[in-house]
């Protein structure tokens, strides 16, 4: 018992109770069975100083408690101290999560096994957890109502009012051929009862976890092997994935949603959660029994599906996923440990490599059969092609054929439904659908309904292969326009023309609604890291054509109309505005849609975005064809694997480490380089401290890149993507899968978080400590370490007397540019696994809130646990004048921001201004910002009162859309911290 505490005895007793349940309760024991055999694993639990140390081993259907942690342990839970053990015993699952996030608990080893252990615990505590969850939900609702009891009916009418006042537009854009009122002000959703029903379903249907994809794939891999084939020969990974994909597409259920004009679904559910066990799927293991009860974004799951996941699917993947592959092959490197502590960076590559844009125009032009012919022609042409190239191209071919097989089955399904359809109108639609699916995507598209169906079938197929996280649609207005024009040209009468326009709106509406048929799998911890996020399927409108002309066309306005009418979070609409080419009428319409929907589209300055990519010397016609990806990031459409959100980097962590000689305070880990002690006066001037910051930042960048590259390798081994490879320019000649660098262009994009917080903190150190000598650095540090609790005067001084980023101060802008340039250069110096460079972006999804909760007080006066500002938005306190914010952000150098930015502005229309005046004001801000060189801007047009009311009465605001940092979410689905962050953002009257 040497060194062991009393708590150790308690830990032992708890584990013994657990093992007894497993050994003596038949139904519990059954939980240890998977695919006909027993699941073996060993889990350790200890405190940092080993005052508590226990192990539990599950082997051959028996559980056994060990008074130590054996060397062959699979995963160990390490608790900060004895007190945490006691907290853990009382904790709800949700509280356990927060303890993990806040570094009270850390994990070492295989996380799938930890999730399985959590599942075992949940089985034992099932009844208790349901009651606990019910209590949590009741308390949450009570708290919300108590905070904003009054029912503010006036606010609730606001959105309807905006919609009712919409304006008509003038036909001024050269690319608009048929729309006399491009704003399409005569239409509203009541003209499209079908879409209205779909929107209702969208808001009233609870998403359900679907077992189809992972189930079929796991079946195939179990039968045919994963590492080696049935004969024991190592698989060539793209071939294996192609064959498994073929099995999936030939065996999954072909569904046609009731009343839809677009055939096919991503899952078997109305709204399905897609599970990818080869990436992060096993993260939900511990929640299989409770996910339908959780407070935030619950999912339904049937008992049978949960059983299948537990017994048949997840056990196969415990070691065959990105994280665990890296852990095993590279012995849990430091770069991986850093990621798994949540506080310094978050590696999206563990979940996906799918932030890219497929070449839809080529698919629509050639059809998949035409693409197959090109593969065959390449194989015939390149006689000396390597085996790798031949197999890679064959794998692509198999995938395209698999897509065709699925489309054929959709066609048959449509025909059979038509045969039994009593309503003649619907029967006709189904017959047409059967015809479409028998023609496309195999053959070229000729009409808009064919184009929409072909793209949707490819889109869902891509999601059967790649994780639904950031895979993006691209320039759909450009790509659909020729098919729309063909339809319009065939109209003989004004009535037909009118009907054709109406039909185009409806088809695009159906396409949008199809995109909402699936959701990414977010384990509960994700609700705290990036809550409310859908799969961020970005769509891009407007801008210029590859040859530099005005690209705004009829379809641009049709997409905007649909965006306005549906007011839903997916697809994530991004609009390009080229100040040299695009019209003011178009920009005004963008602002109007933003006003009506509260939060979308996101607005991009074409010139600045293209300037930011100058360093890569992309051919200009390819550059002009860029699309936003995931949130805001630029990808050269159809020819570029840019995994533009491979990671979220917390720059503020580097600052904290510089303040603490390399130690990260929350993790209490001396992990970074020793750069000097503030307390000992090690910094003589600002430059020395700035160097300490960049040294720590470099350390984090180097580690994050190292891990991202290892994960890149894992993707190429575990899940190459031959279908995506067939849809991107490059693999055909190169003969390499896109996960191996086969695309024409390859980059990896980072999101650097906390630019304003870092800049403001550096400004405080520079001005108050070194320039003006108003406070000593060690006094400032003491105040920071104590969250300014004992020094309100110093807190007042740092927050009031230092010019911040966004205040119009030259020096603050210079510091921000310097930090951004450092991030850019440090990332740029690295190459990714696919052989391309890294880019740096300054947007944050919602991680500015999550990272904020994991960060102590800062020299800027931001208090411990508070969110950072979203993206690179200035701190609300920087200036009362929005123009100062706009000017400062516009003065940041695009060359340092080649993965784009997110600049959030919350504007509140004045009650006395007309709709048109409000639109004019918004237009003036955006237009000027772009003229000044600003890259991107996104406006939330809501009031804090409205958000508070929504917090208290979520049922009244189900469709209240807000822009977080780059993506859209329904306000009511956000966690409380995120809701408060949105409310506390600076609010500017317009």
């Amino acid at each position: 018992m040497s060194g062991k505490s009393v708590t150790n005895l308690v830990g032992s007793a708890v584990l013994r109770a657990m093992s007894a349940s497993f050994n003596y309760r038949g139904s519990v024991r059954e939980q240890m069975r998977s695919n006909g055999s027993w699941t073996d694993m060993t889990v350790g639990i200890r405190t940092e100083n080993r005052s508590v140390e226990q192990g539990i081993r599950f082997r051959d259907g028996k559980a056994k408690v060990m008074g130590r942690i054996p060397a062959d342990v699979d995963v160990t839970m390490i608790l900060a101290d004895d007190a945490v053990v006691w907290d853990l015993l009382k904790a709800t699952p949700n509280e356990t999560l927060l303890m993990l996030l806040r570094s009270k608990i850390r994990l070492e080893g295989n996380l799938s096994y930890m999730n399985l252990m959590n599942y075992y615990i949940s089985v034992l505590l099932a009844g208790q957890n349901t009651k606990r969850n019910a209590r949590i939900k009741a308390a949450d609702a009570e708290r919300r109502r108590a905070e904003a009891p009054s029912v503010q009916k006036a606010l609730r009418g606001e959105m309807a009012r905006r919609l009712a006042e919409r304006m008509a537009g003038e036909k001024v854009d050269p690319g608009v051929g048929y729309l006399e009122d491009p704003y399409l002000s005569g239409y509203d959703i009541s003209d499209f009862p079908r879409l209205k029903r779909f929107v209702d379903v969208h808001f009233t249907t609870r998403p359900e976890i679907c077992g189809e994809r992972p189930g079929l794939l796991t079946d195939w891999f179990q039968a045919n092997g994963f590492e080696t084939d049935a004969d024991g020969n190592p698989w060539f990974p793209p071939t294996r994935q192609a064959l498994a994909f073929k099995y999936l597409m030939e065996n999954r259920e072909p569904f046609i949603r009731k009343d839809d004009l677009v055939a096919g679904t991503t899952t078997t559910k109305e709204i399905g959660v897609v599970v990818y066990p080869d990436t992060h799927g096993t993260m939900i293991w511990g929640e299989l029994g409770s996910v339908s009860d959780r407070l935030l974004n619950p999912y339904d799951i049937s008992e049978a599906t949960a059983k299948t996941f537990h017994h048949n699917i997840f056990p196969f993947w415990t070691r065959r996923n990105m994280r665990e592959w890296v852990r095993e092959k590279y012995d849990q490197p430091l770069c991986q440990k850093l990621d798994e502590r949540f506080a310094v960076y978050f590696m999206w590559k563990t979940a996906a490599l799918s932030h890219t844009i497929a070449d839809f125009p080529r698919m629509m032009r050639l059809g998949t059969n035409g693409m197959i012919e090109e593969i065959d022609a390449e194989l015939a042409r390149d006689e000396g092609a390597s085996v790798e190239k031949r197999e890679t191209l064959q794998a692509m071919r198999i995938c395209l054929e698999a897509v065709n097989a699925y489309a054929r089955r959709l066609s048959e399904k449509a025909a059979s439904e038509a045969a039994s359809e009593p309503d003649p109108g619907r029967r006709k639609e189904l017959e047409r659908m059967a015809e479409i699916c028998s023609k496309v995507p195999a053959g070229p598209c000729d009409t808009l309904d064919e184009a929409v169906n072909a793209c949707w079938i490819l889109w869902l197929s891509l999601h059967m292969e790649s994780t639904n996280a950031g895979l993006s649609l691209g320039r759909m207005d450009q790509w659909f326009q020729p098919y729309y024009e063909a339809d319009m040209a065939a109209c003989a009468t004004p009535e037909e023309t009118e009907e054709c326009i109406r039909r185009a709106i409806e088809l695009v509406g159906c396409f949008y609604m199809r995109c909402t048929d699936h959701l990414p799998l977010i384990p509960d911890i994700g609700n705290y890291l990036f809550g409310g996020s859908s799969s961020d399927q970005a769509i891009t409108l407007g801008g210029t054509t590859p040859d530099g002309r005005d690209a705004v066309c009829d379809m641009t306005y049709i997409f905007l109309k649909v965006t306005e009418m549906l007011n839903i979070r997916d697809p994530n609409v991004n609009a390009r505005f080229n100040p040299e080419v695009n019209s003011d009428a178009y920009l005004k319409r963008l602002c109007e849609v933003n006003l009506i929907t509260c939060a979308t589209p996101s607005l991009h300055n074409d010139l600045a975005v293209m300037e930011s990519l100058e360093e890569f010397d992309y051919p200009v016609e390819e550059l002009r064809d860029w699309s936003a990806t995931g949130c805001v990031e630029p990808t050269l459409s159809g020819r570029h694997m840019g995994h533009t959100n491979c990671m979220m980097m917390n720059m503020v962590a580097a600052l904290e480490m510089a303040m603490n000689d390399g130690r990260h305070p929350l993790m209490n880990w001396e992990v970074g380089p020793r750069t000097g002690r503030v307390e000992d006066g090690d910094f003589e001037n600002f430059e020395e401290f700035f160097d300490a910051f960049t040294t720590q930042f470099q350390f984090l960048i180097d580690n994050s890149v190292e891990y991202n590259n290892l994960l890149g390798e894992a993707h190429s081994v575990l899940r190459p993507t031959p279908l995506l490879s067939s849809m991107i320019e490059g693999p055909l000649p190169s003969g390499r899968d896109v996960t191996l660098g086969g695309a024409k262009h390859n980059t990896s994009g980072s999101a650097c978080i906390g630019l304003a917080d870092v800049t403001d903190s550096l400004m405080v150190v520079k001005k108050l400590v070194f320039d003006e000598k108003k406070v000593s650095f060690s006094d400032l540090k003491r105040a920071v370490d104590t969250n300014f609790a004992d020094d309100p005067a110093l807190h007042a001084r740092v927050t009031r007397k230092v010019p911040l980023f966004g205040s119009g101060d030259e020096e603050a802008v210079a510091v921000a540019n310097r930090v951004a340039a450092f991030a850019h250069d440090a990332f740029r110096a690295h190459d990714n696994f696919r052989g391309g460079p890294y880019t740096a972006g300054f947007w944050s999804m919602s991680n500015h809130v999550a990272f904020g909760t994991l960060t102590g007080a800062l020299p800027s006066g931001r208090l411990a646990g508070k969110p950072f500002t979203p993206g690179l938005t200035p701190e609300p306190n920087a200036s009362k004048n929005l123009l100062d914010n706009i000017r400062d952000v516009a003065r940041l150098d695009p060359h340092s921001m080649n993965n784009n930015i997110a600049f959030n502005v919350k504007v509140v229309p004045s009650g006395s201004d007309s709709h048109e005046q409000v639109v004019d004001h918004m237009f003036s801000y955006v237009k000027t910002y772009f003229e000044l060189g600003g890259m991107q801007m996104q406006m939330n047009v809501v009031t804090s009162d409205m958000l508070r009311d929504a917090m208290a009465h979520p049922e009244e605001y189900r469709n209240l859309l807000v822009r977080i940092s780059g993506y859209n979410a329904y306000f009511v689905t956000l966690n409380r911290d995120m809701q408060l962050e949105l409310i506390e953002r600076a609010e500017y009257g317009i």
Partner: protein
Amino acid sequence: MGDAPPAAGRTGTPLILEIKGNSLDDGPGIRTVVFFKGCPLSCAWCHNPESKKVGPELSFDPRECAGCGLCIETCPRGAIDDSIEAHVDRSRCDLCFECVETCPSGALSRVGREMSVGEVAAVVEKDLPFFRTSGGGVTLSGGEPTLFMDYCSRLLARLKEMGVHTILETCGLFDADAFVRTVLPHLDAVYFDLKLYDPAEHRRWCGTGNETVLANFAELMRAGLEGGVEVLPRIPLIPGITATDENLEALAELLRGAGAERVALLEYNPLWLEKTAKVGGRNPLAGRDASDRWMERSDVERCRAAFEAFELA
């Protein structure tokens, strides 16, 4: 005895209260408003009470105060006393502003800063791109800018050289000859405030009679209608004082007579009460009904009814 117009304006450099960018309520487009310090009227409800006096003032904002007490240590005259509600004993304060230098939070601040025409123009220049896209410009306000006609004239001339759209907001009490000769040529519009029709009432609430104000209004309107600078009459709605049916009907009649077609009605808001306290002023409307809250919608509608014949700006 009427309202003697101030001597053809003061010479020298005025104190500027604030240059407020991004204003959407002081004329068309996005505007930058230059607030002058000092006014010949002393309206009881003045919404910028810190602009009444020509000279600098010390402002204290209790919400910003960190309670550190540094100001008490600093003040050479012992004028700061945190035991009194106003925080500053104005009878002792000699406006040395040393406390402002010391105050870490900005709770103590100096109101009014001397700025040359060039300095103001430099601040405005940053906003030019916003003026261009929005059709905005600069509005001179106050206080009363015409107290400093020479300065206004030079500033406005400079702004016109920069291509800026210009508006001047005025209480109407100025020397018309000097105004027409030196200021008006540089203006695109005059926003002319009318408060009370009855001279005695005007004297009671605004400190002077309104004979000059009304004469100036008539003259500028006439010139405006003859193709000169546009004049927009504006009426602040002060419950129980200007917002009476009697006064509004009289003013409407006056406007009709002057040939006005548009009028702006400025709704009462109680924010000035807090501002008055900050500079140690007292509230002349204390105890009056409705002076401490925003106007009711129905009351605004009632006031509007008197101006049915006009376009409301």
